[in-house]
């Protein structure tokens, strides 16, 4: 591997890691603050991606906006969705056992998948890259790097920075002792978690396209991120996501036969070393 290829691969690793972080951060937030194992988190990613596809003609017709207007509308809708879901379902889960949480959130996956099938169908759809970002930068001899991918990384990076700074202040006991309405806070945190996952889906849609079952694919790797990083730790999730990005990217290239299991080997190794993950929150 020459130097250019190596640097491009590093860029690929960074980019993949940041996107993983964006999806997983919502999961670890909900997991860490409310103690809910949310299997439906991948569905929120899927809902986001499908919103990017389905909303664009509607938004274009009503406001005349492009991709960024769709992002804004989608973000608002997902906050509302998260808020309503918390009120209707998740608020009953906090005191329950993990098994019941798993059962209900698994049920939600099935409901969301079926709704998707009824509303949008089972075909694969593409989402257009917004015209402003539809360029590419030369990279090495043959390759170019799409500007849109850099945009994704920038969005992820901004959110990552914002969240790691904020994360210090989300201490459960502290908040309770300050006398803030915990019910309301939970609702807001949950809505934020859903919105972040949906945002990740929307931003990723132009490069990943939208297809049935896309949420479940993301869910598993997100759990790996959360477990490696330490449940509830935003900083841990960021480092774990970047680590997975590097291992997955270079694994595919250097050890193609084992690339499917490398990420899980990494998880096993880290858990042997630190059973609670890299950074245990609280």
């Amino acid at each position: 591997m020459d130097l250019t290829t190596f640097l491009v691969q590093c860029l690929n690793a960074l980019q993949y890691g940041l996107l993983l972080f964006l999806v997983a951060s919502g999961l670890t937030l909900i997991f860490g603050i409310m103690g809910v194992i949310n299997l439906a988190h991948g569905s929120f990613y899927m809902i986001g991606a499908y919103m990017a596809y389905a909303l664009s003609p509607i938004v274009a017709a009503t406001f005349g906006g492009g991709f960024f207007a769709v992002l804004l509308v989608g973000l608002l809708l997902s906050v509302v969705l998260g808020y309503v879901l918390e009120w209707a379902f998740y608020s009953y889960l906090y005191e329950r056992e993990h098994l019941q949480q798993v059962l209900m959130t698994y049920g939600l996956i099935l409901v969301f998948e079926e709704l998707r099938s009824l509303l949008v169908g089972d075909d694969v759809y593409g989402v257009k890259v917004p015209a402003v970002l539809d360029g590419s930068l030369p990279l090495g001899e043959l390759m170019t790097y799409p500007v849109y991918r850099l945009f994704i990384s920038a969005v992820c990076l901004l959110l990552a920075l914002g969240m790691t700074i904020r994360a210090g202040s989300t201490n459960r006991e502290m908040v309770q002792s300050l006398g803030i309405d915990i019910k309301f806070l939970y609702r807001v945190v949950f809505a934020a978690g859903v919105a972040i996952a949906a945002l990740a889906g929307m931003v990723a849609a132009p490069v990943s396209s939208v297809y049935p079952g896309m949420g479940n694919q993301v869910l598993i790797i997100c759990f790996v991120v959360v477990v490696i990083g330490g449940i509830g730790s935003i900083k841990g999730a960021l480092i774990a996501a970047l680590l997975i990005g590097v291992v997955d990217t270079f694994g595919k290239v250097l050890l193609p036969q084992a690339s499917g299991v490398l990420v899980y080997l990494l998880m096993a190794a880290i858990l042997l070393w630190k059973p609670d993950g890299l950074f245990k929150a609280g």
Partner: protein
Amino acid sequence: MTRTKKFKLSFLVAAAAALALPSAMAQAPKKLKVGLMLPATGTFAVLGTAVENGFKLYVAEQGGKLGGREIEYVKVDDESDPSKAVDNVNKLIKRDNVDVLIGSVHSGVAMAMAKSAKDSGTLLIVPNAGADAVTGPMCAVNIFRSSFSNWQPGYAMGQAMAAKGHKTAVTITWKYAAGDEIARGFKEAFEKAGGKVTKELNLPFPNVEFQALLTEIAAAKPDAVFSFFAGGGAVKFVKDYAGAGLKKSIPLYGAGFLTDGTLEAQGADADGVLTTLHYADALNTPRDNSFRLAYAKAYKMQPDVYAVQGYDAAQMLGIGLTATKGDVSKKDEFAAALRKATIDSPRGAFTISKAHNPVQDIYLRQVSGKENKLVGVASKSLLDPGRGCRM
């Protein structure tokens, strides 16, 4: 004859007919039970529906009868889930006592069906799944395929790419049975023709993070790339390939599934991509045109390769039943009739190999304006070697 006499006579005839009816019914052959084991839910649901529509279209064209026997359908949704496949196929064989099994789309499910069919002796026609083994090591006198083997489109593309003058190629697929088999077929033909596969890239199914491997392709600088992905993965791969700027410098080729049912989502990024398959849009033969018209009339949508495979599965069943006068238990006669037959398929006439896989033309198609336009025949009457088949 007066009117009353006429009336009396017809009354007598009617009465006689009425009397004869019960015995006539007893003698008429029992309905033939066809067990359709196809995906009705999940990612492959659309494909399952197309196969079923195609099958039923042919049966309807024959007046609802094949080989003199009326057809009755029993359906099971296999969900494309190999772990449920054995249970599902046993339901059809043991509970419903079907005479014929038709299925399925997913190769893992089809393998389970082939195993059960081999054990129980029930007639099986596979209308899609391309696993080489179905007409290889798993082959049997009562197992047939109306679609293709994974080896076929790969091998044909190996010949076509070598003929285009490419000397080196990189292959990229998912690391699972279908991907391996297609890539192996490609390599066999490409290297036989003097080409060299310089790198075999793959990633675990159904992973869609292609960026690292695209960087590898750019570093390896082959003359061309041969790929196999399907569905959502195919859409993302084709878009990423164009996004990485490789499309301009290294031409992309693939097995037909790369651009089948995915063109709407792939958009302009798929333009110019060459693929091989046993069917193409706008074949423009009288046989295909009449099929497409009948299908569009019956189902209010355009047929695809899956519908053709379903239609041909019914044709094959019809040929076998006609030869055995509707008796599916005469397996040797049934198989002998099919091996001699030429199936008048919308894709172009094909025959059945000794291992019971279609011997068919594989077309070279090029994407243009959201259609897989016919370019020519990549491989004429391509016979799958049926490796490992002992019958």
